[in-house]
């Protein structure tokens, strides 16, 4: 049983979100969320970002609209989400039922020296998602709640937004392939079949 006051560990959170993942499609934001998703197991159905900060949520939207029968999970950080905060309004308008956005909130810019982000001073991303019009928006503080979000990913009654408060721990990097063409091609081949190679 997790103490409600102890911050969650990011790798445990991501392992639980990806438990029995089935055929879900995953976009990982740059930095630690990329390493966390990769630590849970490199997978052709992952698209881990190495740059383009602010891209994760909108990549999730474009993918969810293109693949309405598949479930799409975006796992990103608080700094990355803050950079594209307007995208929450765009996603709220489009209401993709197959999209979940999980933000791992350590209240820090982890890759650049653990400087505080706006969430450390009270900016409430779950509240902002709700106010933008994403009706299912939760702040998650226990592993039981993480399991509930994991189930919501598979239910397809989104869009779902989850702000997971995590410990600001610096962990060993687990790196997926870095080349964009490799990541793009293996993802498209996995989702679309060999046809993807021919256009």
């Amino acid at each position, binding site marked *: 049983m997790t103490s409600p006051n102890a911050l969650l560990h990011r790798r445990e959170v991501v392992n639980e979100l990806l438990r029995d993942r089935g055929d879900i499609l995953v976009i990982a934001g740059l930095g630690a969320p990329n390493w966390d998703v990769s630590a849970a197991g490199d997978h052709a159905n992952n698209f881990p970002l190495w740059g383009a900060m602010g891209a994760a949520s909108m990549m999730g939207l474009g993918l969810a609209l293109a693949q309405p029968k598949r479930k799409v999970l975006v796992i990103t950080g608080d700094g990355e989400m803050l950079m*594209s905060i307007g995208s929450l309004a765009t996603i709220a308008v489009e209401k993709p039922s197959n999209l979940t956005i999980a933000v791992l909130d350590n209240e820090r810019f982890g890759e650049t020296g653990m400087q505080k982000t706006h969430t450390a001073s009270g900016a409430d991303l779950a509240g902002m998602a709700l106010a933008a019009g994403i009706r299912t928006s939760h702040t998650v503080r226990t592993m039981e709640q993480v399991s509930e979000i994991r189930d919501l990913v598979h239910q397809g009654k989104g869009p779902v937004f989850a702000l997971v408060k995590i410990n600001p721990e610096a962990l060993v990097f687990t790196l997926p392939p870095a080349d964009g063409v490799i990541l793009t091609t293996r993802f498209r081949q996995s989702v679309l079949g060999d046809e993807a190679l021919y256009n």
Partner: protein
Amino acid sequence: MGETTARLKDKASPPLPSWPDDIYRILKEAGVKQVAMVPDAGHSRLIRAFDADPETRLVTLTTEEEGVAMLAGAWLGGQRGVLLLQSSGVGNCINMLSLPAICHMPLLMLVTMRGDWGEFNPWQIPMGQGTQASLEAMGVIVTRADTPDDVAPTVWGAANLAFNTWRPAAVLIGQRVLGAKNFKELARK
């Protein structure tokens, strides 16, 4: 008498430009399914056409770089898209253009120009004049259309380039095609 005036006005007004309809046809033939945009007056006719089209998803963005990311996601899921924006919005896209560049993804951007031929608003000049250089600095292949007749072949060429060679490509539609606004005239009315 009111009717006569209306008819005279009708006669006097120039025919509606057909190039937005040409763009619509070309994008449909190219298989575009997602249209991402921050509105511009120059694209209003095209936006209305897509809004009425149940086969395409028209998504209004809060800022243009959202569209670059969205269309990258669309491509991962097997759909083609287009980004409609004004030249000022190109500046918002710069770092996000890393994504199609490094991943060799198609990205078709149709940019209506400001800060260009006949501009009246000095604040439009810096980004308008920097649009082509900014795009090219990020590896986007840029072509321009400066007459109405040039729009369709230029868009056709850029769409083929983007979707057949998996590269970002932009068409700049000049203010000479769109007609320059004159707010000073509007302010006098």
